[in-house]
């Protein structure tokens, strides 16, 4: 069989050619480049003596500002910037095209079954319970996602709820004890930008419309997608974490074993909610939670109810979609 290399190269050359810039294109590109250079020259010190004098003057000004201005950088922002710097230095994960990024998460989901579903009258309270789910995800480099979920015995808020749960077969709907697997092609088609400003615009373009949460919380929600069970590159993860450092209201909870925990409180309708999340030094999301800080008048759930909780393993590269131990 003939070596296809020659024909492939020539066909590709025919397809793509050798584009030459026109004089207009050359002039346009050069003008834009020169404009950028000129801006930077304006910002550059004119001479060594000016530089030294400027530095001395600047030192005085900075010292004065430090004495008079409140500290702007919070501990959370500082920690996130440090993580971003660490992540920037990481080499991208390299793996065969046929391999997958595997992440196992242990989640607790707050579930609701409306009154009619458990034999209650319309208008009576819904049934709430917390469902633990083990979730394995395999993300292929071409965007394929396989999810495998296994729900286990729920936690109930009272014994009546527990009895209703089994009486009305909700356990079968939840497939307690069964492992369910499904595959989605092109699930991860988002390529996260690596430039911070560009990423900021990209995320803002993905914010939900008509949300009842503050915009910076929606921003957090979208941004965390890039570092949760995601094949995002270190450069993208670094940019995400750098953006997170600018979020208002973020608090550093602590750092243990290289994993730093943060929280942010916000209002959503009548509820006060705390969103917690933890990021490791490789820039991956390792846990998150959402907790109602106030009692929920609609559901009757007390203050302190955890509505979502998850821990994520560090991503590992695996060669197949087979179950992992």
């Amino acid at each position, binding site marked *: 069989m003939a070596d296809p290399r020659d024909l492939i190269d020539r066909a590709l050359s025919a397809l793509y050619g050798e584009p*030459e810039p026109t004089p207009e294109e050359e002039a346009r590109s050069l003008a834009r480049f020169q404009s950028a250079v000129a801006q930077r020259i304006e910002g550059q010190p004119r001479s060594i003596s000016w530089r030294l004098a400027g530095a001395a003057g600047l030192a005085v000004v900075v010292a004065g500002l430090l004495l008079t201005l409140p500290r702007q950088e919070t501990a959370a922002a500082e920690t996130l910037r440090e993580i971003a710097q660490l992540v920037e230095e990481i080499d991208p994960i390299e793996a065969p095209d046929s391999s997958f990024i595997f992440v196992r998460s242990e989640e607790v989901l707050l579930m609701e079954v409306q009154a009619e579903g458990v034999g209650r009258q319309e208008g009576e309270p819904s049934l709430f319970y917390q469902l633990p789910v083990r979730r394995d995800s395999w993300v292929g480099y071409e965007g394929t996602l396989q999810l495998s979920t296994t729900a286990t015995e729920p936690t109930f808020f009272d014994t009546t709820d527990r009895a209703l749960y089994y009486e009305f077969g909700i356990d079968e709907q939840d497939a307690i004890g069964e492992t369910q697997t499904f595959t989605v092609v092109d699930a991860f088609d988002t390529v996260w930008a690596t430039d911070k400003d560009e990423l900021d615009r990209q995320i803002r373009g993905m914010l939900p419309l008509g949300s009842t949460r503050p915009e910076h919380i929606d921003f957090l929600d979208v941004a965390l997608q890039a570092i949760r069970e995601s094949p995002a590159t270190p450069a993208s993860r670094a940019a995400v974490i750098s953006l997170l450092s600018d979020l208002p209201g973020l608090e550093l909870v602590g750092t243990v074993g290289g994993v730093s925990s943060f929280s942010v409180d916000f209002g959503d309708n009548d509820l006060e909610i705390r969103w917690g999340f933890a990021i490791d030094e490789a820039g991956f999301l390792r846990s998150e939670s959402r907790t109602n800080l106030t009692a929920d008048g609609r559901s009757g759930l007390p203050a302190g109810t955890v509505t979502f909780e998850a821990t994520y393993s560090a991503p590992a590269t695996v060669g197949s979609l087979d179950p992992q131990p």
Partner: protein
Amino acid sequence: MDSRSDAEIISASLDDVSEFGVIYRRHFKAVFAFVARRVDRSEAADLTSDIFVKALDVRHRFDTSQPTALPWLYRIGRNVIGDRMRRVSRRSRLDVVIRGGSEWELVGESAETAALLSVSVSEMEEALKELPRRQREVLLLSSVDGCSHAEIAQILGISKGVVATRLFRARERLAEIAPVLRQQPPKSPDPPTEEDRG
């Protein structure tokens, strides 16, 4: 003609920004071609200047042990183009070509070779669509942009071994998808024989 290496010029530009203009003049056409193959032609000039401006801002990160700045500029180019694509949701050059049909010319080929190549090119359009993105990227950098394995490794941030593996797979897969690519076009300008025509 400035005889200094790219590394020397970039080092000098840290103190004098205008020095970076030498890098611009030296690599403009190559970077322009790299961009024009991947985006709508109308955007190529602006994106080319964007790449150089971005490079200017991160020139302190250039590895001065590298013999040329071109792979570094291509690497920045990939990011700039990727960001642009996401922002405007425009089709890639490949999509444009596929959608637009015969936009290319077969230059410098004999009529017979051109005929076979034109079949191959149309097969290639379809085959490239089927190729995994990462394999396609390596193939284009090698066959179209003329980068060496080492340069591709530098541009993509992967090892040379992985480059070779992906390239091999890309070629094999292309030939599987488009069997016509396994045929060898005639290399001499001689007219085909009756047997060839049959």
